[in-house]
């Protein structure tokens, strides 16, 4: 079709399996799917730019290479760390398959650090213990403090080896489904950034692996590109999102910047101190201290600051002290994060402690799936042909708080499972017909924003959104703060209706791209806050000062949020709930 001023050129493709996103989960899925069915990977970046590459500390698996360990202890830690909101069947799968997941990566060439015997080395990490909490265990397999980088590179290398087909800088903007109550996946619509043209990809299976939405917060370890597109697309198609109130704040972000400093720093012996030099975690978690689960450490840090024991001109942060560690250990095990401290804060970690404060890091919630990676349209029914894996998904192996290293594990275990399931599904069905004018809604959205002269700027709305989220929906929440955030978001959504872009061109229009991303961010921020408001308890990453205790009677259940379209065409959020799967562990109080 010829291109003119009003009509985008359109292209059509057909595959068996489409994978949306080329981080760890997407590429792990592609490796499985590519061997079984005709597969394409669509990514709005280049594959090696994905944020898996920023993960640092490691990937836990009970290899028992350096001390006694087994996957059942790992499962217990995962369930307990998630404050018992974890679906235990899923956690068992993840921790049992963790061992092969690590060995698979090693066989693909991942350069793990080694023990003196030449085996994969392992180190301690927050919340990982032996014998159900007896003491910290060395379970994390790692490559210095760039484990995620090595995973991303290794998976990309293997994709090249297998000639996996990539569509780089193709931004997926819609999911195609057949009509009717038993609707199934028919493909996706993608926007080619380089040309501004629209591509319809028909397929039998689609795997979403688009990562998280950390950019709803101002202080975040997440990349600029983590705008929750996959979750937003699925939600707008009427499918639920699970446990959106549970968002993890990583304790050690570089103060003021949010750049991640791995928990490995504390695994290697680093200590958190307040303005008095006190190792304050001894008061909050007497047994495992600085290696307590992330939600506890983040709250403890925030509490030190608000009680006036913060450091710096505004007493706004605490300190991560590595000065007692040998330089050789820092250089060998923590080279990247110490360089971040030098580059961005001008701090020499050999001699000075590093200013740190919690940073928005990881969405425990997301697109609900079963343990094969199949997406659910309600509490029990799967959507034929639709899969999700990694941070975009909620299996739920992280419950209300993810343990460190379990995300790199999650992407490998469930990326693999989703890739297999998606390919096997594709081999059993015929290609569904797409709906009429499949690209119509996407073209209308893009052209609407491009043509708008409303005058509201993307950056101004986004900054206001991030500010209210940091202020009102962070580690401490109350009914008042959440209602404030909800009101603010409503106002911002109204302003978003008048958003306009300065770049009206086709080619590489990142101005337009950011406007589209902001729409997803607004949807997801509202979902997070609405889900948090309804959860009148404190559990894991969700802490309500007005309901400071866990309430298993009323809230041992997953939140399921649906987009409900009212008779006047407006959309509201409808909240429902789903039972937690419990197999062998009864909820206990989480002490450290």
């Amino acid at each position, binding site marked *: 079709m010829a291109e003119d001023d009003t009509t985008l050129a359109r292209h059509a493709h057909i595959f068996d399996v489409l994978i949306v996103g080329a981080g760890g989960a997407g590429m792990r899925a592609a490796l499985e799917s590519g061997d079984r069915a005709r597969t394409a990977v669509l990514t709005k970046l280049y594959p090696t730019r994905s944020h898996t590459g920023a993960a640092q500390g490691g990937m836990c698996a009970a290899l028992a290479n350096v001390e006694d360990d087994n996957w059942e202890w790992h499962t217990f830690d995962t369930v307990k760390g998630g404050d018992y909101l974890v679906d235990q069947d899923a956690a068992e799968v993840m921790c049992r398959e963790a061992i092969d997941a690590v060995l698979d990566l090693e066989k693909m060439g991942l350069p793990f650090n080694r023990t003196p015997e030449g*085996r994969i080395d392992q180190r301690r990490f927050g919340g990982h213990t032996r014998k159900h909490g007896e003491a910290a265990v060395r379970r994390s397999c790692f490559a210095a403090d760039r484990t995620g980088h090595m995973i991303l590179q290794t998976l990309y290398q293997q994709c090249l080896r297998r000639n996996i087909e990539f569509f780089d800088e193709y931004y997926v903007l819609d999911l195609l489904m057949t009509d009717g109550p038993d609707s199934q996946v028919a493909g996706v619509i993608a926007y080619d950034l380089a040309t501004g043209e629209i591509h319809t990809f028909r397929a039998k299976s689609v795997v979403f692996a688009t990562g998280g939405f950390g950019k709803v917060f101002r202080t975040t370890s997440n990349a*600029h590109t983590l705008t929750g597109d996959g979750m937003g697309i699925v939600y707008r198609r009427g499918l639920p999102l699970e446990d959106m109130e549970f968002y993890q704040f990583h304790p050690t972000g570089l103060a003021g910047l949010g*750049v991640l400093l791995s928990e490995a720093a504390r695994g290697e012996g680093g200590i958190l101190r307040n303005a008095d030099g006190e190792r304050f975690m001894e008061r909050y978690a007497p047994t495992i201290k600085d290696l307590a689960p992330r939600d506890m450490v983040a709250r403890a840090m925030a509490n030190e600051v608000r009680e006036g024991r913060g450091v710096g001109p505004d007493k706004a942060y605490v300190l991560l002290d590595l000065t007692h560690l040998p330089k050789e250990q820092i250089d060998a095990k923590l080279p990247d994060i110490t360089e971040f401290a030098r580059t961005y804060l001008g701090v020499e970690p050999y001699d000075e402690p590093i200013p740190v404060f919690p940073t928005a890091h990881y969405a425990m919630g997301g697109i609900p799936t079963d343990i094969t990676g199949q997406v659910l349209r309600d509490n029990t029914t799967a959507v034929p042909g639709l899969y999700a894996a990694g941070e975009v998904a909620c299996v739920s192996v992280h419950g209300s708080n993810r343990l460190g290293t379990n995300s790199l594990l999650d992407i490998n275990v469930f990326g693999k499972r989703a890739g297999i399931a998606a390919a096997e599904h594709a081999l059993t069905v015929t290609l569904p017909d797409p709906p009429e004018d499949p690209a119509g809604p996407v073209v209308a959205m893009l052209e609407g924003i491009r043509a708008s002269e409303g005058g509201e700027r993307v950056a101004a709305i986004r900054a206001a959104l991030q500010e209210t989220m940091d202020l009102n929906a962070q580690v401490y929440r109350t009914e008042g703060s959440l209602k404030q955030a909800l009101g603010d978001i409503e106002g911002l959504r109204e302003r978003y209706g008048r958003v306009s872009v300065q770049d009206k061109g086709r080619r590489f229009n990142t101005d337009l791209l950011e406007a589209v991303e902001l729409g997803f961010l607004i949807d997801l921020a509202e979902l997070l806050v609405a889900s948090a408001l309804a959860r009148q308890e404190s559990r894991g990453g969700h802490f309500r000062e007005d309901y400071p205790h866990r309430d298993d009677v009323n809230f041992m259940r997953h939140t399921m949020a649906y987009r409900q379209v009212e008779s006047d065409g407006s959309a509201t959020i409808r909240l429902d709930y789903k039972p937690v799967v419990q197999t062998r562990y009864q909820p206990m109080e989480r002490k450290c």
Partner: protein
Amino acid sequence: MDVTLTIRRFNPETVDEPSWQSFEVSVQPTDRVLDALHTIKWEVDGTLTFRRSCAHGVCGSDAMRINGRNRLACKTLVKDIDPTKPITVEPIKGLPVLKDLVVDMEPFFAAYRSVMPFLVTDGHEPTRERLQSQSDRERFDDTTKCILCAACTTSCPVYWNDGQYFGPQAIVGAHRFIFDSRDAGGAERLEILNDREGVWRCRTTFNCTDACPRGIEVTKAIQEVKRALIFR
């Protein structure tokens, strides 16, 4: 403080030739050049186009030529370059410019793909991990740090002037496997690098080593590959 950024602009949709445009922006000395670019894009001119993602030097999206040197915009602080003079920002050289600071990365990735950048093994797979001594692991550590940002390749004068040479990054990518004790593809990979347009085109100018934001000793890696070819 106020700084001036002088940026090489080019949108082939609307103009035939690139041109320079200056912007004055208010920044903190500790801001990254990327922050200054964002301020321009978000507050002044939404058409300014560049790639970026992680914003802390690990994803490799925002390699650009800043004051004549290849760097990552997110790893270059304003205070670390002379902010009293205009800061020039251009796309990395040697790859076709698509728009402003965005270049076509395909020739770069094609060169990477050509050197078999993946582990090649033979024999039976062990049930557990392959063993590797700590010193064998250390042997290729430096080149595992590569983030494929293209800062090295697009700083190489041979690459600029020779349409065939596959550039320093591809050699780094090959080095990472040639010196991995687990790999069995070394001979084949070395043959690729021994090509007329291969490793011998390197003139040892060290631009690549200077440009690498990850501190990889790129020139040294290239010399090690040359030596491996001579002594194979």
